[in-house]
């Protein structure tokens, strides 16, 4: 058992120079596990955690080709909200939201979940219709949401430009008060620490290079650290999902695209909430450190390069200045990209596959960070029972064959 984080332990450590347990113990792979999770991002680590905690399966390995949290989990703009349009999606994201609300305590690790509220701005009449529709749906689904007009927005965010004389004037917004942001790396680390505390092996620098399938059943994986056997393999490798699928002879309804973000230099607090806008393509919050964290749109071409093109970030900077002209002389400090796996209906796939024992959790595209605990939770149950968790049922991969798509383009529209 690991030492608990508390004021007491902190004090003791400070006084006695006593050491902490390893939060992320390094492991070498064993030859066989009950379950292998491919991908040490937030979703993969959360899956392992809930497998161990709620499904009683502790003989689990999380196999990560680089360092944990180094994929999209470590490069996203951390917006967490559950105000999705369709019932299926909003149930899943709301499930996640509830888990977020107790996550730090559950993990004994402060993931700095900060419920500072999220505004989704509307700039056209159709935006406002869509906002009304979505907010009404949210409320009926028990998700907190309100429509606010431009005056209320201005009251809450005095630095925002609500002038009518701009290209895309702000007409109103939806606001979710329980929404917010969290410390992305902390989420990966918190899940990793808690999972390994329950016996999960977290194996870094270990790339899966092939999947062993025999007579339609998964047998295990080949990795850069040797072969590992398991009857059940869960793939949670985000941008690389198609690559893993190919190893098992499968194709997926996803494409990988670059998605970019950038941060400014740190400033004193000026923006206390999260603002997103589909129409002008940008979203922004200010981190606890003081930097503005800004997300841009995706590039239209396929890529695995973890970088995007200049036009996208420059347009995004312009979009942010349309909303917040006072940031003109603030400087961009760093810009980076992730690889997002985009599904045609902007909803994820949480599903068994044609290969027995092989499960996929992918297609979260530009907005899966917010789902991290919920996704891991339902995926763990899906793997453990070899039967989809109730909330995961609509996200079966077969929906692309039956046509039962869950179109979330409206709510997911811009990357976040």
């Amino acid at each position: 058992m690991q030492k608990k984080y508390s004021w007491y332990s902190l004090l003791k450590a400070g006084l006695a120079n006593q050491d902490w347990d390893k939060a992320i113990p390094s492991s070498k792979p064993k030859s066989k596990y009950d379950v292998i999770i491919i991908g040490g991002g937030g979703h993969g680590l959360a899956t392992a955690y809930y497998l161990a905690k709620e499904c009683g399966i502790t003989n689990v390995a999380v196999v990560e080709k680089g360092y944990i949290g180094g994929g999209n989990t470590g490069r996203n703009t951390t917006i967490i909200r559950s105000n999705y349009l369709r019932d299926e999606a909003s149930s899943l994201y709301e499930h996640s939201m509830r888990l977020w609300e107790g996550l730090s305590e559950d993990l004994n690790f402060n993931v700095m979940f900060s419920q500072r509220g999220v505004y989704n701005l509307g700039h056209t009449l159709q935006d406002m219709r869509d906002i009304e529709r979505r907010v009404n749906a949210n409320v009926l689904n028990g998700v907190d949401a309100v429509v606010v007009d431009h005056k209320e927005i201005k009251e809450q965010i005095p630095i925002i430009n609500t002038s009518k004389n701009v290209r895309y004037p702000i007409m109103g917004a939806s606001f979710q008060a329980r929404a917010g942001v969290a410390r992305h790396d902390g989420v990966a680390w918190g899940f990793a620490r808690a999972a390994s505390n329950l016996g999960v092996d977290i194996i870094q620098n270990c790339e899966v290079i092939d999947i062993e399938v025999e007579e339609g059943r998964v047998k295990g994986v080949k990795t850069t650290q040797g072969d590992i056997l398991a009857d059940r393999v869960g793939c949670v490798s985000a941008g690389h999902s198609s690559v893993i699928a190919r190893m098992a002879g499968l194709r997926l309804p996803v494409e990988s695209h670059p998605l970019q973000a950038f941060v400014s230099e740190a400033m004193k607090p000026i923006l206390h909430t999260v603002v997103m806008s589909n129409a002008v393509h940008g979203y922004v919050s200010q981190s606890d450190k003081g930097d503005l964290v800004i997300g841009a749109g995706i590039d239209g071409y396929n890529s695995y390069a973890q970088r995007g093109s200049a036009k996208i970030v420059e347009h995004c900077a312009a979009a942010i200045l349309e909303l917040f002209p006072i940031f003109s002389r603030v400087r961009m400090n760093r810009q980076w990209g992730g690889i997002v796996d985009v599904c045609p209906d902007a909803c994820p796939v949480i599903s068994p596959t044609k290969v027995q024992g092989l499960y996929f959790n992918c297609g979260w595209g530009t907005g899966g960070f917010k789902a991290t605990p919920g996704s891991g939770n339902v995926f763990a149950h899906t793997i453990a029972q070899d039967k989809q968790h109730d909330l995961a049922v609509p996200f079966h991969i077969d929906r692309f064959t039956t046509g039962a798509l869950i179109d979330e383009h409206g709510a997911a529209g811009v990357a976040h």
Partner: protein
Amino acid sequence: MRIEKHSNSLIDYNQPLSFVFNNKAYKGFKGDTLASALIANNVLYYARSFKYGRKRGIIGAGVEEPNALVSLEIGGRYTPNMKATEIMLYDGLSAVSSSNPHSIDFRAMIKPLHRFMPAGFYYKTFIKQKVWSIVEDRLRSLSGFSKAPSEIDEDVYDHIFQHTEVLVIGGGAAGMSAALEVLSSSKKARVILVDERENLGGELTNEFTTDQTATLWYQETKERLLKYRDEAGSRLKILTSATAYAWYDHNYIEVLQTIGTGQSMIQEGVQSARKVLHKIRTKEVILATGAHERPMLFETNDLANIMLSQSVRRYVNEFNVVAGKEIVLYGNNDSIYNTAIDLRKHNVESKVIDVRASGVESDIVLEARNLGIEVFQGFAILKAKGKSRVTGIEISKVEMQAKPPHWKSKWRVTGDTQTLNCDLLATSGGFNPVVHLDCHCGGKTYFDENSQSFLAQKDRKNRQLCGAVNSIGFWKDAIADAKNKAQLTLLSLGEDNEVNPQELTNQSRNYFNVDQFFTPLEILNKPKVFIDLQNDVTTLDVSLSIREGYQSIEHIKRYTAMGFGTDQGKTGNINGIAVAAEFLDAPMSEVGTTTFRPAYTGVDFGAMAGRELGDFFDPQRFTTIHDSHVNSGAEFEVVGQWYRPWYYPKDGEDMHQAVNRECRAVRTSLGMMDASTLGKIDIQGKDARELLSRVYTNAWMKLAPGSCRYGLMCNEKGMIIDDGVSTCINDNHFIMTTTTGGAASVYSTLEMWLQTEWSHLDVHLSSVTDQFSTVAVVGPNARKLMKKLCSDVDFDSKNFKFMQWRPGTVCGVKARIMRISFSGELAYEINIEANFGRFIWDEVAREGKEWNITPYGTESMHVLRAEKGFIIVGQDTDGSMTPMDVNMNWILAKNKPFSYIGRRSFSISALKSEDRLQLVGLLTKDDQVVLPEGAHIINNKGVSVGYVTSSYYSPALGRSIALAQLKGGLSKMSETVLVKIVQEKQGLKEIPCEVSSSVFYDTNGEKVDGNE
């Protein structure tokens, strides 16, 4: 303080400048940076650090500076987080520290608690969500540097696209030499030479003090370059104060040039850009970005007046200033001797402490000794003494137990410590080639044992490295290297120039020939050995991070915040890597670097956006009639990029009143509308019909010339994506109209099919959206007006039927008149060449007065079409509606031989489900209540079963009407449903409605022929 004037300095003593820093007035000179001017004025403290609030001084002289962050100016020119070292002084400058070193600082006050706040502190504390939600905002107010700006920027920023064969980045000795070589060896190649400093020369000015030939070479080279730049048909652009900050794919590089820092850019009514962003596409890159010096590690190495050796040298040589009197230079390479020698030549005394073993009597050591400089060899500094500024050092003898190639140094401190006094300490731990840009776009680094630094990947396509970035220290070698690389560059460009590589001398004054990193555990395990000064990351933080299992360098970075600051770890990161290597017991090559990303140095958001703001953010597209709408006081609705009249309020009308008036006019007499924004595609070729029947769901093979037809377009998923009327001009010629917002995507989708799948079809498409203006004349009296306007068309309803078109002449202008209707009334759309659009509009308005013709906008159009149950794609559909869902089975052709786009999907199970959302009409029981659009319909369990897509008050019916998507709605006619209003101040409200047909008005279509 200033030292004696000397000729190498760039200071212009004839131009004194006044400025204010932290509310005190100072004087400086043209050529100073804010930093050099403040050093001249003996200013010591510039800022407080991020976490512990420690007072900090300047350590660097350029962009690598982590400490001296200031806020520049006020109001509309206020700029946060500028480095004092990057601000060129101008008269009247005013700046304050980003975090005031002189005020009381909470972070510094809790000093006894600092030991309880190691890296990762916050992950272990405030774990209860409720507590965190309270604490977080308090903590936030402690972080951040400058305050954010509060006013709108007074300045503007331009973007300029540039193209060149060769881009030389860095204008030091190497870059100047490379640029010159390219220009003189090639007759065609264009060159752009950029440097972030105000002057060319880079570090070469430092050599002037000791080397006359350097001065001569510089002057001559600069002159030759300027001649190339200024000649007619010049092939050379020189951009100074211009930083290459990002290297994107395919040799696309962005360079930010500063025209003015904080001074007003508005002079004599002309506003020049504050910064210009050059967007450079180049065939070849020559990287000559030099190297950054890195500091040595010892206890409390963050005190004020502990600087970098090369920076002290630059301050003396370039700016004529020095920050102390009792100076100690400390390091592991020859750079410290150079600084000492230069100081001596300018009559400033110093001592040198060299960790390298005694007995190595190289030229430079001898030269220093000969000048009377005291040299300690084989000594190291263990600790800097002093409260906030350095007042002395503790030194001790050290020995290296193992030498390269063994990667681990095993330094040992031997002997007793002694104390030396000093008021300025300058250190050099070797140099990091500035490889940042090279890595932005895929370049890798490797660890070089000799220089103990990460060097750029040796070979990359279309890129050469030269000079200090190529770990070449001696300036003459840098020049020779640059020439060689320039020749290789020309070779790569395909020029058949001769390549005569010059030998490098490998002179001993090579800063890149350094000993092992000096990282003895005796020092690393002490508190307050700072790696990242801006974020207060110490060696112990790195050690803790590793012990807790955060061992990858990327985890260390994220756990400790090392390299996260505005300097992005330019000086500190390498020490962090060395320290991690020591604690991990792994070679530095294995530890590796973190990822280099843009921006090399910060880029103003304003500069990134350029002029694409306000009206230029997105094109505003206007019809040719726009001015008239403006004159009529129209409110506009933005549809796609178009500005369409929304409604035309008169005499203080609100929208509701205006729309009622407009609708009534259309229904009772005559209205007019500008329909020019609809997309129009000219389709010609013998297979034009075939194309239409492949992309529309209905039949097109029999549509006669002179007729029009409505079509619905789906994607392969079977979902409606667009609709519109297409006109048959003749058997080989059609004109398709699309929705305003869908025009571009429909056009490119059609092209896509034609080019990638159906290239055998003989069809040509041309966009004619801009060719025609369209004036719709709508209402029972439309025919009367048309007859008045156009005499060469027979408007009799038996001869010119609904859904037909006729060529004619309207007010002397050739027109195509279509009789189609989106309102259910008699209507004609007059299509004329756009240059006559305004004229025809005005004529229609004038001649229509007789029937009180009323211009109406999109809002009335929406009401009118909703009364008739016509859908708006994108409002009543949302990308997930099939034609069946909107009750338009009639538009699905049964017997087309070709399986039109989308058809196959109609037969998959979910699309056939009875329970889908389907488009119906809703009539509120209380006919005066207008449903809010977006409100949901609920079932008896309170669960949503649909929502309102369109809702209006219908003046024609004297009641409200609405369209809605309702689960299984088409089989629920006449049933009562509840619409729930969730956001009501006085509690939730439910509105009962009756499900109805979506056609509310003139259900039998009797109005379409209007009045005779």
